[in-house]
């Protein structure tokens, strides 16, 4: 035991990106894609049988591409018995992804006597089966694991555990969670599926409808959306360059992008109203002043003002703050939890598993 060293990690296993923060100072992310070489030739070309993230997307024609996370949870984990084969494959793919991100942060570490302890964020209303799937994919890769609600990890990392409302806008889900100084219950949380992926799909359909001759994929419009997303009524016109019969042509997509990005707003504002209205009236004003936007979607230009405007209209007042590092907020909070967790608590968990 004298030679053991503990390495704490916080993981945000997202639909779009898997983000990891480690106690040795390394933090990084990988797009949640795993590619398996189709044959020996591809394997030789890629230098490996399995590739991840951007590389997997780049060589997607040469690999069998998997995206193991859907709507914030491991695919098929809601009903593993019904889709046994697919579920087993997804678990195997997810394990590869976890193994890869862990290897990124431990590559310079001496593995002898190294204990890897981690906290993984799960969507606010993830089912027990979803959480079990998360435990399953880390078995044998990490020594000790805890599953914690994602908005809670964000709140913990920002030290906003009291009377605040976290809105985590991801690719698969938007999680709204009010904090009352303890682990949020089901009544404190709302999860909506109108998230980044939904915006991508709506944006894609709108461009398809307007520019019938343009050729593009969902990944192309997703990348464009991530760089230009906005909901405000005013601003510069924006155009996307898409190929038409092989020739790159600029297309004005200002209205389409605004319309697609606005799709997520009604669910968010309704969720805020519901969570504020059902909160202890003594602290409602405090809650309205502490609305925190996190996740990739929080970078949408004008979203903060849009929510504040809605809150002023329906709730009389509202103050929204964006986190400084939307991509790392969840993983940073999870890492803080992993580090703060007393050793005896981890030991209790080990004896249980």
């Amino acid at each position, binding site marked *: 035991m004298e030679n053991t060293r503990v390495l704490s990690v916080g993981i945000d296993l997202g639909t779009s990106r898997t983000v990891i923060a480690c106690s040795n100072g*390394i933090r990084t992310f990988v797009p949640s894609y795993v590619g398996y070489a189709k044959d020996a030739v591809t394997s030789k070309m890629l230098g490996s049988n399995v590739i991840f993230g951007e590389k997997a997307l780049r060589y997607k024609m040469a690999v069998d591409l998997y995206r193991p996370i859907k709507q914030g949870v491991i695919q098929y984990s809601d009903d593993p018995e019904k889709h046994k084969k697919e579920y087993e494959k997804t678990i195997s793919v997810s394990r590869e992804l976890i193994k890869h991100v862990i290897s990124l942060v431990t590559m310079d570490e001496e593995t002898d006597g190294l204990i890897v302890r981690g906290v993984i964020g799960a969507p606010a209303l993830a089912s027990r089966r979803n959480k*079990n799937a998360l435990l399953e994919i880390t078995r044998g890769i990490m020594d000790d694991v805890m599953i914690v609600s994602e908005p809670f990890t964000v709140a913990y990392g920002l030290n906003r555990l009291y009377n605040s409302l976290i809105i985590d806008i991801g690719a698969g889900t938007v999680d709204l969670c009010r904090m009352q100084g303890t*682990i949020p219950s089901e009544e404190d949380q709302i999860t909506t599926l109108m998230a980044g992926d939904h915006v991508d799909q709506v944006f894609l359909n709108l461009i398809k409808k307007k520019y019938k001759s343009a050729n593009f994929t969902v990944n192309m419009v997703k990348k464009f959306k991530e760089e230009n997303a906005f909901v405000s009524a005013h601003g510069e016109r924006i155009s996307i360059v898409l190929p038409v019969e092989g020739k790159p042509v600029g297309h004005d997509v200002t209205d389409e992008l605004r319309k697609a990005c606005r799709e997520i707003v009604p669910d968010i504002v309704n969720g805020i109203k519901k969570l504020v209205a059902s909160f202890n009236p003594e602290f409602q004003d405090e809650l309205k002043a502490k609305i925190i936007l996190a996740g990739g979607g929080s970078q949408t230009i004008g979203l903060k003002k849009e929510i504040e405007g809605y809150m002023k209209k329906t709730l009389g007042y509202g103050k929204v703050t964006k986190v400084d590092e939307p991509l790392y907020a969840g993983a940073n909070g999870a890492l803080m*939890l992993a580090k703060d967790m*007393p050793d005896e608590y981890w030991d209790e*968990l080990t004896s249980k598993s």
Partner: protein
Amino acid sequence: MKQSVITDDVFQKAAKYSHSTVDYFGLVSWSIITRCSNAGKEAFLRIARPVAKKILDNFTGNKQKTRQLSRTNAYADKRTMKIEKRMLQLEERLAVLEKHGVRVSKKGVQSKVKKAIDGETRAVLRTIVEDNKRLRTLLK
């Protein structure tokens, strides 16, 4: 009368001979000097030419660079381009580091002493542990 004519001839001849002698010696001396210098010239040049070239090369080089600077700034442009290229490489490296995580320190970061947590935080952490214990119980 005849005696005086003879004396004049002798003196004249003596003067002419003397002049011829001096002229001859002058030619011989010049010839010797020219021949000597010609004989040593090749050897001297063979030794001196590379030495002089090496010394003068520096001045020639400086002159060329100075001329480039004063006329076209080509030398400065070349240097600036090199610096720009290096900066680009550094920026790319920084982007890679940012993308794949910035290493703060290699070892010894994992402190054995945990930071002190207050009672309320401990209670929250306790709830998380209990929640995870329940999850594992149901998994069995």
